[in-house]
C-alpha cells in the first residue's frame, strides 16, 4: 500500500490560475526561500528551514502587510466576505469561506492560497511582493503566532454573542421559547440569571459555581440519552469552555446592533452594481414606430417588428382560424375547442370574433386550472412532504391549490396575490377576528406558497438544524427563482459569484422569515395519524373560514346527535332486557326471600345492613347480568343491538375530519440571526437584522418593520418585505412576471433565464418591450388577464408557425418571433385533452386530490373511475409516485420547484401512447362518441374525428386515407374476430373506429400545436 502522498486539494474550486501553478511545485519553490530578507537580494538557495530564524509574528510582521494590501476590503464594518484581518482572531476565524489561516497548515490556509495564486488582491491591484507572500507562508508554518495581539488568546474578551449561538443550538430546544423545562430560559443573559427551579444558571465571574457549567461538565446536560428525540447534537468541550470563559469574564454583554442598512451606505454593494439593467426600475418606453404599421395590432407588434426589420424579417402571415382557435384555447384554458366552437369561430364574420373568443376563454373557470398549474410549478406544489421513505401526506395542501386556481380565475391583482402568499398571516388579525371570512382564511392558505418545499423534519433524525436550514434554503430558492428572478440561494454559503448579493443579504432575508421559520424553534410538519408517538401536529391550523367551520360543526353535531339517540335507544333496550332477566331469575328464588333480596339489591351498597350485604353478595352476580352478557342471553336484543351498531358506524363514517389549513405563521419571537460562514450553523458570524437585497435598494434605507397591528404577536417582517416587493417601481417584480407570461404564450421568455435576471442570466432579447410590458402591467393594476389579452391579441401571437427558409437562415432559434413556435402539448394538456375528446372528463373543481393507483409493474395512474376523471391538476401529487402518463411527458419533480418545463421527445412516450391500457380505453371512448355523433357513414366519422382531435375538418387526402383505413381495419377485425362473435360486422366496424381513434391519439398533429 505504498504510494506517493496525494496532492492536497484546496477546499474551494480551483481557478485556472491554480492549474497553471500546481500547489506542490510552487510549495517547493517557496520552501526553498527561507529567509525573505535574503531572498530579496538573490534567488533562493538557502536551506529549507533554519532553526535560528525567528518565527514571524502577526502583530509585528504580518499585520503591516495586511494593512497595506488587504484592509481596504477586509477590515472594519464594510469588510468583504465577512473577513476581518485587523485582528489575529479575525484571521483565524476567517470569513464566508471558513478560516483564512490554519496554524501550521499552509495547504489548508485559504488566505495563502488566494494570495499566492494571484486571486487576491483582485484584478492584480497592488499585489504583495513575493517576499511578503513568503513571509506569510513562514508565519503560517510557524503556527501563525499572534505576537502581542491578544484577540485570539484565552483571555480575549467575549460577549453574549459568542455564547448565545451555542445555547441556541444545544440547549434552548428544552430551555427556550417552546418547552421551558425546569422553568429555565437560556435565550438571554437575563434568562440565565433568573435561572430555573434549581436557581440561577450562571454566576457571573464564577463558572465553577454556575449551574449551566456544572451540569454540562457532569455530562448531565444536554442529556445524551434524550438529545436525539429533540434533534440536537451533544455539546462540544470547546463550546463549554467558551461559555465558561464568558462567565469567568463576568458574563459581559455588549450592545451589538444587528447589521442592517444604514445611512452610511453599503460598502459591499456599489452604485455601479445597482446600475445593471435589471436592478433599475423598468423604464417608461415609447412605443416605436413600426416599419410596417399596417401589421401592428397592438404595441407589442411594434417592438417585435422593429427588431425583425433589423434582421431583414417581418411577421409571418396570420395563422388560419382553425389553427388559431386551437392554439389560443389550449394556451388559455388547457383544452382544445369543441367542434361547434371551431365551426362558429371559423365562420364568424365579426372582425372582433377573435377578441370575443379570448374574452370568453379568460372568463372560463378552466382558465384558472390551466394557469394555476403554471403557478403551482413555481411554488413547487406537492401533496406530500418528500425526502423520506414514508412520504407523509399533506392532507390540506389542496387548499393552496384551490386558492391559486380561484385567484387566477378572479384575476386577483398580482401585487395582492404576492402579498397574500408571502405575508398573508400578517395582513389581518385572523386569530382574533369575530368572524373569519373566506377572504381572511384565504390570506392564511395563501402562505402555503412558502410551505411547499420538500420537508423531512417531521422525523427527529432529519430534523437537525442543518435539515431545517435546507428546508429554509429551498423556500428562499422558491421565492427567489419564482418571484424575484434572482438566484438568492447562491448566497447561502458565500457571497454571490456573479451578482452583487453578499452573503449578508441572504441572512438578512432569513431574518425576514425568522418569525415563522426559526431553525431553533421549529414547527414540525404534520405527523400522520397512525404514527403518533408523543408527536403533535404543529403546522396544521384550525383557522378556516367561520362558515366552513360552523357547517362542519353543525354537520358533526347533527351526526353526533343521531348517534347519541341511537345509543340511547340501545341502552334503554338493554335496561329493559336486564330488568326482564332480573325478574325472571328473582322469580326462581324461594318466595320467602324474594322481596328481601330485591330490597337488598335496591339499597345503595353503603347503606345496606349486614344481612342485606350478605344477600347482595350472594345474589347480585346472578340476578344483575352485566351489560356485555345481555346479547348472549337474549336473541332479539342481540339482533337489535347489532343492527343499531351498524347504523352508528355508518353515521360515524359520515363525519368529516376537522377542517384545517397549512399556513406560514409568524410567532413574534425570532431567535437572533447570525451569518453562517460557509452556510455552516456551527460557524456563526455577524449578527444581522431583517433587510432587503441591497442592490435593489439605495443601500442606505433600512427595511422598516412594524407590528402589523397594535399588540400583534407578530414581527411584521414579512409584511414589510412583501410590501417592498410589490411596490410599483420594484425593479424585478413586474418584469419577472410579464416575462413569465410571455414565456408561456410565446415559448421562450424575453429573458430566456426565467429565474435569473442577474449577470449570469441571459440579457433580454427585447429589453424595451420587456420594460414597456412591465410598466403596462403595473398601470393596469397588476391585472394578469389584461396581460394575457394584450399578448394573445397581438399580431405576433396570431402568426402562423410555418418555418420558412429565411427563418432558418436569419432567426433559427426564433429569438425574434419571426413565426409562432410549434409546440408539443404539455403533460396536462395531453391528458386532459384525451379525457375531453373521449368524453371522460369530469369537470368537478377543487377539494381533496384524486388518489393514484400504482400497478404491480410500477405504472401509476388515476384510480379507475367509471364516471371519468377530473383534470390532471386534481390528481394527487405525491413526491415518490408520479402519474406515469404525466411523468412521461415531462411533468416535473418538485425539488423544490420547477421554473421551466422541458419538452422531451423520447421512446417511453411512444410506448405509453401505443401500449397503455388507459389510452386504449380513451380511444374506445373517443370512438363511441364519434359513432354517436357521426353515425355509420365513414366519411362523417373521419370528419368528426378530425374536428374533435385536430380542431379542423380533414382535406381530401386525409378523408380518403381515413376512410380507407377504417375499411381496412374493419376487414382485418372481421377476419380476426371469432366466428361466434355476436354482431360480427358491427363489432368489427366498432373496433375499426377505435383502432383509427387510437392512431389519431398517437399522431403528431394531436400532440403538437401549430
Amino acid at each position, binding site marked *: *500500500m505504498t*504510494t506517493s502522498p*496525494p496532492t492536497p*486539494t*484546496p477546499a*474551494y474550486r*480551483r481557478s485556472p490560475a491554480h492549474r497553471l501553478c500546481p500547489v506542490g511545485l510552487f510549495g517547493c519553490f517557496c520552501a526553498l526561500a527561507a529567509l525573505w530578507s535574503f531572498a530579496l537580494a538573490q534567488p533562493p538557495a538557502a536551506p529549507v528551514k533554519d532553526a535560528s530564524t525567528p518565527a514571524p509574528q502577526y502583530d509585528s510582521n504580518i499585520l503591516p502587510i495586511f494593512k497595506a494590501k488587504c484592509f481596504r476590503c477586509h477590515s472594519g464594518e464594510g469588510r468583504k466576505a465577512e473577513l476581518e484581518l485587523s485582528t489575529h482572531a479575525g484571521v483565524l476565524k476567517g470569513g464566508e469561506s471558513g478560516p483564512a489561516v490554519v496554524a501550521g497548515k499552509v495547504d489548508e490556509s485559504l488566505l495563502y492560497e488566494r494570495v499566492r495564486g494571484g486571486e487576491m488582491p483582485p484584478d492584480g491591484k497592488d499585489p504583495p511582493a513575493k517576499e511578503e507572500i513568503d513571509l506569510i507562508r513562514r508565519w503560517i508554518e510557524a503556527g501563525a503566532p499572534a505576537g502581542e495581539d491578544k484577540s485570539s488568546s484565552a483571555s480575549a474578551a467575549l460577549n453574549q454573542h459568542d455564547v448565545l449561538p451555542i445555547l441556541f443550538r444545544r440547549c434552548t430546544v428544552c430551555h427556550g421559547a417552546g418547552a421551558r423545562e425546569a422553568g429555565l430560559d437560556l435565550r438571554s443573559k437575563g434568562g440565565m440569571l433568573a435561572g430555573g427551579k434549581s436557581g440561577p444558571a450562571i454566576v457571573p465571574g464564577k463558572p465553577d459555581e454556575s449551574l449551566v457549567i456544572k451540569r454540562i461538565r457532569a*455530562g448531565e446536560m444536554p442529556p445524551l*440519552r*434524550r*438529545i*436525539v428525540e429533540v434533534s440536537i447534537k*451533544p455539546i462540544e468541550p470547546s463550546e463549554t469552555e467558551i461559555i465558561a470563559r464568558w462567565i469567568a469574564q463576568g458574563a459581559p454583554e455588549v450592545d451589538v446592533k444587528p447589521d442592517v442598512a444604514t445611512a452610511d451606505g453599503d460598502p459591499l454593494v456599489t452604485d455601479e452594481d445597482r446600475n445593471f439593467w435589471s436592478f433599475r426600475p423598468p423604464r417608461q418606453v415609447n412605443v416605436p414606430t413600426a416599419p410596417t404599421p399596417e401589421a401592428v395590432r397592438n404595441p407589442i407588434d411594434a417592438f417585435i417588428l422593429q427588431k425583425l426589420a433589423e434582421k431583414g424579417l417581418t411577421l409571418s402571415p396570420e395563422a388560419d382560424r382553425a389553427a388559431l382557435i386551437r392554439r389560443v384555447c389550449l394556451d388559455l384554458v388547457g383544452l382544445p375547442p369543441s367542434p361547434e366552437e371551431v365551426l362558429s369561430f371559423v365562420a364568424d364574420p365579426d372582425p372582433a370574433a377573435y377578441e370575443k373568443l379570448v374574452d370568453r376563454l379568460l372568463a372560463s373557470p378552466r382558465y384558472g386550472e390551466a394557469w394555476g398549474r403554471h403557478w403551482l410549478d413555481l411554488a413547487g406544489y406537492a401533496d406530500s412532504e418528500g425526502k423520506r*421513505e414514508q412520504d407523509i401526506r399533506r392532507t390540506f395542501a389542496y387548499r393552496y391549490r384551490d386558492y391559486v386556481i380561484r385567484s387566477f380565475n378572479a384575476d386577483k391583482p398580482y401585487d395582492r396575490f404576492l402579498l397574500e402568499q408571502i405575508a398573508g398571516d400578517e395582513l389581518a388579525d385572523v386569530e382574533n377576528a369575530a368572524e373569519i371570512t373566506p377572504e381572511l382564511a384565504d390570506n392564511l392558505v395563501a402562505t402555503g406558497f412558502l410551505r411547499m418545499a420538500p420537508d*423531512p423534519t417531521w422525523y427527529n433524525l*432529519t430534523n437537525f438544524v442543518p435539515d431545517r436550514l*435546507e428546508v429554509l434554503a429551498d423556500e428562499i430558492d422558491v421565492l427567489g427563482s419564482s418571484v424575484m428572478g434572482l*438566484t438568492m440561494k*447562491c448566497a447561502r*454559503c458565500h457571497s454571490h459569484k*456573479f451578482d452583487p448579493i453578499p452573503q449578508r443579504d441572504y441572512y438578512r432575508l432569513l431574518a425576514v422569515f425568522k418569525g415563522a421559520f426559526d431553525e431553533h424553534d421549529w414547527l414540525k410538519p404534520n405527523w400522520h395519524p397512525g404514527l403518533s408517538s408523543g408527536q403533535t401536529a404543529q403546522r396544521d391550523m384550525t383557522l378556516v373560514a367561520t362558515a366552513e367551520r360552523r357547517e362542519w360543526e353543525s354537520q358533526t353535531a347533527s351526526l353526533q346527535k343521531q348517534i347519541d339517540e341511537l345509543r340511547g335507544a340501545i341502552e334503554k333496550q338493554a335496561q329493559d332486557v336486564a330488568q326482564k332477566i332480573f325478574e325472571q331469575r328473582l322469580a326462581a328464588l324461594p318466595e320467602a326471600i324474594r322481596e328481601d333480596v330485591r330490597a337488598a339489591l335496591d339499597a345503595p351498597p353503603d347503606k345496606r345492613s349486614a344481612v342485606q350485604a350478605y344477600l347482595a353478595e350472594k345474589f347480585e352476580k346472578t340476578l344483575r347480568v352485566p351489560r356485555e352478557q345481555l346479547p348472549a342471553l337474549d336473541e332479539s336484543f342481540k339482533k337489535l343491538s347489532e343492527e343499531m351498531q351498524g347504523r352508528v358506524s355508518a353515521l360515524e363514517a359520515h363525519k368529516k375530519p376537522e377542517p384545517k389549513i397549512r399556513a406560514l405563521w409568524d410567532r413574534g419571537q425570532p431567535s437572533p440571526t447570525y451569518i453562517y460562514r460557509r452556510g455552516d450553523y456551527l460557524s456563526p458570524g455577524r449578527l444581522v437584522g431583517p433587510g432587503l437585497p441591497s442592490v435593489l435598494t439605495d443601500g442606505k434605507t433600512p427595511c422598516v418593520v412594524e407590528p402589523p397591528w397594535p399588540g400583534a404577536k407578530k414581527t411584521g417582517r414579512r409584511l414589510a418585505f412583501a410590501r417592498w416587493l410589490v411596490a410599483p417601481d420594484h425593479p424585478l417584480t413586474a418584469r419577472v412576471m410579464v416575462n413569465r407570461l410571455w414565456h408561456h404564450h410565446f415559448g421562450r421568455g424575453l429573458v430566456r*433565464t426565467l429565474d435569473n435576471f442577474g*449577470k*449570469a442570466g441571459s440579457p433580454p432579447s427585447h429589453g424595451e418591450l420587456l420594460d414597456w410590458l412591465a410598466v403596462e402591467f403595473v398601470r393596469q393594476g397588476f391585472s394578469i388577464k389584461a396581460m394575457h389579452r394584450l399578448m394573445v391579441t397581438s399580431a405576433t401571437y396570431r402568426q402562423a408557425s*410555418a*418555418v420558412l427558409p429565411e*427563418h432558418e437562415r436569419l432567426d*433559427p432559434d426564433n429569438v425574434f418571433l419571426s413565426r409562432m413556435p410549434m409546440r408539443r402539448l404539455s403533460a396536462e394538456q395531453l391528458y386532459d385533452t384525451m379525457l375531453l375528446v373521449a368524453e371522460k372528463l369530469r369537470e368537478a373543481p377543487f377539494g381533496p386530490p384524486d388518489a393514484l393507483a400504482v400497478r404491480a*409493474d*410500477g*405504472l401509476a395512474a388515476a384510480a379507475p373511475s367509471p364516471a371519468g376523471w377530473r383534470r390532471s391538476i386534481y390528481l394527487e401529487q405525491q413526491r*415518490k409516485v408520479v402519474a*406515469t402518463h404525466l411523468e412521461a411527458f415531462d411533468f416535473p*419533480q418538485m*425539488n*423544490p420547484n420547477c421554473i421551466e418545463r422541458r419538452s*422531451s*421527445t*423520447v*421512446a*417511453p*412516450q*411512444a*410506448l*405509453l401512447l*401505443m*401500449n397503455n391500457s388507459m389510452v386504449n380505453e380513451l380511444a374506445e371512448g373517443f370512438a363511441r362518441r364519434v359513432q354517436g355523433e357521426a353515425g355509420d357513414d365513414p366519411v362523417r366519422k373521419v370528419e368528426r374525428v378530425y374536428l374533435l382531435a385536430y380542431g379542423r375538418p380533414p382535406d381530401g387526402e386525409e378523408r380518403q*386515407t381515413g376512410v380507407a383505413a377504417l375499411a381496412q381495419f374493419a376487414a382485418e*377485425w372481421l*377476419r*380476426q374476430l371469432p366466428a361466434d362473435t355476436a354482431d360480427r360486422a358491427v363489432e368489427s366496424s366498432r*373496433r375499426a373506429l377505435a*383502432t*383509427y381513434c*387510437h*392512431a389519431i391519439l398517437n*399522431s*403528431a398533429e394531436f400532440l*403538437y400545436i*401549430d
Partner: protein
Amino acid sequence: MADSPSSRRSFFHRVAGGIYGTALASLLSRDLFADEPAHGRPTFDLAPRRPHFSARAKAVIHLFMNGGPSQMDLFDPKPMLDKLHGTQHFEKIAGEIENVKDAGAILRSPFKFAQHGQSGMWVSDALPCLARQVDRISLIRSMHTTNLTHEPAIYLIQSGKMGPGRPTLGSWVVYGLGSENQNLPAYVVLDDPLGLPINGVENWQSGFLPPLYQGTRFRSTGSPVLNLRPDVERPEAVVQMERDLLSRLDAIHKRRRPAQHDLDARIAAYELAARMQLAATDALDLSQETQSTLEMYGVGKQPTDSYGKRCLIARRLVERGVRFVQLYINGQIWDNHTALAGELRSACQRTDQPVAALLADLAQRGLLEETLVIWGGEFGRLPIAQLPADKNESRAGRDHNKNAFCSWLAGGGVKGGYVHGATDELGMAAAENKVSVPDWHATILHLLGLDFEELAIEQHGLKERLTGVNPARVVREVLA
C-alpha cells in the same frame, strides 16, 4: 463494445421470426441518428461520446447494497472488538447513534476472518465465494459519509447531495458517454421484483439533466419495460396496420411543416420504441444461457435465484453495449439492526454467489477489463451493539454509522487484490487515507475517462457537477 456475435445472431433471428412483424425489421437496419439533419443547436442524445481521456472501463455494473453492510463483519476485521466486547462505549459516540435507547456495549463480530487469494485480503466467512475473487477487487476500507439516516445518505451516494433533485451517478455517466446500443436504454436499473429500495425511483433520477439520462427500470418478469408490451393484446396484423396508418398521418403532417425538427425526433422516438421491444426482450431472455452458466450464478435455486438472475442480466446488458447497469435488492437486507449473526449471513447467502459469479464470468469472457463493477452501500455500522426491545444480547444488531464503511471496485482500470485506507481500532471511523463520497464519485468517473471537474452542465449560471462544490480527489491508489 459491439454486440457479441452470438447475441446479434439470435437478435436477428428473432426479428425474422417476427414476433412483431417483418416490417419492423426494416427499422432495425437504419441508424437512428445517421440521417437526422444537423441543425446546429445544442441537443441532448445518447450517441456514443469519447471520454475526456482514454480509459479501460467502458461500462459500469453498480451493485448497490442499500441498507449499510457492516464493515467490521465483512471486510474490516477488528480484533480490538473481541478484546473490548461488552465494554460500554456510549458516552464517546452519543452524537453518532440513531437509536439511542437501544445502544448497547461494544460488540465483537460473530464472523471469522481469514486471509484469501494471493493478495492475502481479509474477508469474513460470510462471503466464501467473493473470498475466491479478492485478487480482482480493490477494497476501500476508509469510506465515510455525512448523514447516518438512510434517505439523505442514499441521496448523497447516488447524486452527490443529501436530498432529491440532482442527477444520479448513472445519469452523469450516460450524459458524458452516451450509449453503445441505441436500441436499449443507456442506463438500466434492475430493481428487485419484490419492491423498490428506499427513496424509490429517485435513486435513478436525472435531476436537472434531461429525462433522457434517467435510469430505465427493467423487470425480470412480465413486460421488461413499462408499457413495452400492450396492456391489451390486439392481433398483430391490426397493430401493424395501425402503425402504417400512423406513419402515413405523420408523414402528411410533417410534409406540410418543413423544417420542424421536433417532428423528426418524434418519429425517431416511435421507431426506437419499436426496436426496443425486440432488443429488451432479447436481452432478458435467459434461456439463451447454458445450464452451467445459470448454475454458476445460482439461478434456479434459493436463495440466490433472484439476485443471480439480475447479475446475469447485467452481464448480458453490458455485453450489448448498455453503459450503466444498476442492481438493487429489496427488503433492506443489509440494514442489520437486529440479529446480526443470522441476518447478515442470510444477506450474504442471497448475494455472495451471484456477485462472485458475475466477476468470474465477466473475466472469462474478457468483459471485466472493460467493465467497472462497484459494490457498496450508503454507510456502515457501529462497533457497539444495538439491542432489541427485550435486551436479548444474542439478537443484537448494529446501528448505522456514517463515519466508516467499506466499498469495493473491480474490473476496468482497477488494481486487483488491493486494500485502500483504514479505520480506527474499533472500526468506528475512517482514519487513514479517508475516502469521501465525492472522492468515490470522482474516482468512478475517472475510471471511465471522465474528468469530474469537466463533466458539467450549465445551470443557473453555474457549472453543476456530480461532486458539486465539494472538494474531491481521484483515489489514484486504486488505479491499475
